[in-house]
């Protein structure tokens, strides 16, 4: 972990900061904050080198103030970096991640979680890119006018777009053109298939795990893991108990099983870490907070993962995807 940056795909601390502190960073010390999974001291203990912080607006703000809400979350991430310049470095490229790593700072990137945040507006998508956003999760747990979410597969939401609408296809093309990573966590299976077909750049799952081990519609079935491998994308494993063991009782060993399974089915080149810390209320024993990543790495080493495979999972895979997305945009 000293040689390769650990890059985590999905952390909802900004959502906690809004709920607990109304985004008033003056009222909290991020070094020592103690009622969240994440604080700066724990990040350092956990050897976390780069984090995609999530700018999330709730689904019930769709068609209301989702855009403004999302801008506020993007703003709080920028202010976090401005307030803690010794520890956090804002990053918007694969190069920035490495630069921060060399300076021993935590590269801080932004992912927007939910297509409803762009209000069906490509201009808004472009400007969010300009504000530093580098991935967009196409849906949260609600359909947009142009993409269906995973609850359609569970049967509780109607299929409104049969996957992606025509406009949804335009969104994909525009994301490829500007260099915004496409995140398929939370989308329906049809959308996963269509995007993996359509996208000219590799795609990501910022926080999803293996369906074969826990049959939850937020997870990725084996055949899709193979499609991701074919497109050279990445699946960043979510630690949430409900997605790891499909039950409340989960340990670090169960999470390692997901890593093993994905490696077996689709190869080590598509694996990453997407803990979903501070976005969920139940995390595994042994992975209680962001200081615990090294214990998971130790377990993988114990399971005979090679250094090459570990470095790939830690950060090389994400960097590869990010660089290719950047290349496709130019």
């Amino acid at each position, binding site marked *: 972990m000293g040689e390769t940056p650990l890059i985590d795909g999905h952390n909802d601390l900004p959502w906690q900061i809004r709920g607990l502190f109304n*985004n008033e960073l003056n009222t909290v010390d991020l070094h020592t904050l103690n009622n969240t999974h994440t604080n700066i001291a724990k990040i350092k203990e956990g050897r976390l080198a780069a984090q995609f912080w999530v700018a999330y607006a709730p689904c019930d703000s769709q068609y209301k103030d989702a855009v403004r809400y999302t801008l506020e979350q993007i*703003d709080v991430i920028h202010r976090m970096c401005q307030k803690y310049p010794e520890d956090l470095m804002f990053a918007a490229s694969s190069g920035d991640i490495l630069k921060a790593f060399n300076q021993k700072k935590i590269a801080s990137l932004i992912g927007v979680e939910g297509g409803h945040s762009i*209000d069906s507006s490509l201009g*808004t998508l*472009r400007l969010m890119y*300009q504000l530093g956003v580098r991935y967009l999760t196409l849906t949260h747990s609600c359909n947009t006018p142009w993409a269906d979410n995973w609850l359609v597969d569970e049967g509780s939401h109607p299929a409104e777009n049969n996957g992606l609408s025509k406009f949804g296809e335009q969104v994909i093309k525009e994301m490829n053109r500007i260099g915004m990573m496409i995140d398929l966590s939370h989308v329906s299976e049809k959308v996963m298939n269509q995007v993996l077909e359509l996208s000219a750049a590799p795609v990501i799952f910022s926080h999803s795990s293996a369906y074969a081990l826990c049959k939850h519609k937020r997870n990725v079935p084996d055949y899709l893991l193979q499609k991701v491998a074919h497109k050279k994308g990445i699946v960043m494993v979510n630690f949430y108990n409900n997605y790891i063991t499909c039950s409340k009782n989960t340990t670090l060993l169960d999470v390692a099983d997901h890593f093993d399974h994905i490696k077996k089915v689709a190869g080590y080149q598509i694996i990453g870490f997407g803990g979903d810390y501070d976005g969920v209320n139940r995390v595994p024993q042994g992975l209680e907070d962001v200081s615990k990543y090294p214990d998971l790495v130790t377990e993988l080493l114990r399971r005979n993962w090679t250094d090459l495979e570990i470095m790939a999972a830690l950060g090389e895979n994400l960097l590869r995807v990010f660089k290719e997305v950047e290349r496709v945009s130019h």
Partner: protein
Amino acid sequence: MRIIYDNQLSKVDLRKIPQTATDISRMQAGHIGAQVFSAYVMCTAQEKDAVRLTLEQVDLILRMCNEYEELELVTTAAGMRNTKKIACLISIEGGHSIDSSLPTLRMFYQLGVRSLALTHTCNTPWAESSSKIYPFYKRGNNSLTDFGKEVVLEMNRLGMLIDLSHSSKGTAWAVLNVSRAPVIFSHSSADAVCPHIRNVPDDLLLRMKETRGLIMVNLYSDFVACGQKGNISIVADHFDHIKKVAGAESIGIGGDYDGASGFPDGLEDVSKYPALIQELLSRGWSENELAGVLRNNFLRVFEEVEQVSSGGRSAGQSQTNTH
């Protein structure tokens, strides 16, 4: 661009646009060195999708200025001084575009917006418009609320120009008492020459002079000729009057082309500015005074706004999230 082409630049050649008063060839003929383009959304979008619509207008301006080699986006006074092209600046025309959200204001600044008109023709929850078309957010005795003051101070801290065109007199006076940096009227003329709610009365002109602000004269017939079509001469009367009351250093030009229809004879479009300058020369304005009107006064104000923002960094940033 939005109304005619739905923001689709592929459908239009910005060098020659048939339906507008502005295009690049006429800007060049008019010797425009810098243009503040307005990202405007209608008042009826307030509390609905004003933020998203404004983002789309900002996106349009960014694309326009990127796609044409004659144009260059600038976001600093230095950038404006140094460019060899027509400088593009972005302003937002109406506080309703920020949806009472300081983070949204900050993100617009990050996107390159350098000026915000506090209101358009409608009140916001925190500031009052000179126009009474819309019934919402009627103000009692507080033309600028406490939150409105926060907005002004945050704009000072960021280095965003405060534009009082369209604001009520009450709001204008309140802002002039709070702002730590000079402010502008981006497109308003002299009330004494043509009484109109959009124009600036003499007492306010004096206060603007005191605070080293800028009145950028609007050329629209309704505001300069009070209902008549008008001509260059009546427009020049506005310049003369403001010079007399507030000094030539307080004056700039804010045409309002393509924001209004109906301009005086001789000033039909953006190629006609030289005729106005010619008239002022013939009225005895010095070259120095005219250089001020043309650009130096604006640059001075812009630089002072930048200085206030970097000087105030130690004062700490507003943590207020939303009203």
